[in-house]
């Protein structure tokens, strides 16, 4: 088995601040994802990466940057935090990124912006 580790678990930021979320996986999966989960809105894909140094935009990429420096890690940057923003950011991985593959999720980073 494997695990996805997201850090930090909780992140409190100020309006306009640049914030970085990190994700590590030890499944040796090729593909990694960042999703945003808002209450009542389901999961929306921000960025994904099919291999090291690859980046693909999802439906919600505006306002975010991502970086896949190595196979096991995928980071997400909120370029300018919005006042009163509150959401959970979920990292996931899958073997090759095919649509019928199982996604494995981390426990999430909960973001609050003051």
């Amino acid at each position, binding site marked *: 088995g494997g695990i996805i580790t997201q850090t930090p678990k909780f992140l409190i930021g100020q309006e306009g601040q640049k914030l970085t979320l990190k994700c590590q996986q030890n499944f040796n999966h090729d593909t990694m994802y960042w999703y945003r989960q808002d209450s009542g809105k389901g999961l929306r894909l921000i960025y994904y990466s099919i291999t090291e140094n690859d980046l693909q935009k999802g439906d919600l990429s505006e306002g975010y940057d991502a970086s896949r420096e190595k196979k096991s890690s995928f980071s997400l940057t909120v370029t300018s935090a919005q006042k009163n923003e509150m959401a959970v950011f979920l990292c996931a991985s899958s073997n090759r990124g095919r*649509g019928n593959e199982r996604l494995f999720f981390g426990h999430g980073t909960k973001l609050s912006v003051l």
Partner: protein
Amino acid sequence: QQQVRQSPQSLTVWEGETAILNCSYENSAFDYFPWYQQFPGEGPALLISILSVSNKKEDGRFTIFFNKREKKLSLHIADSQPGDSATYFCAASDTGGADRLTFGKGTQLIIQP
């Protein structure tokens, strides 16, 4: 445009009853439909999935019923237990095309003992 819709948004059933969670979709090219279960403070985890070539998939107390013509599916949880209380996400993908999973907004299920 919301491609995957779930209903109800919230559902409460008594322990031992069958909980029925509904899902519908827009894109006729979708051919893979997983359901993910999420407990508070955790990430979603795959519960059960079905391909569009089938109309039913069972795994223990969990059953998916799929109607391709109506673009609808449902998750039935038989003999529901308090430990089944969670949020359930229906998702869909077009494995021959864009390939990315599209998630519904989720159904929050509460099982009353």
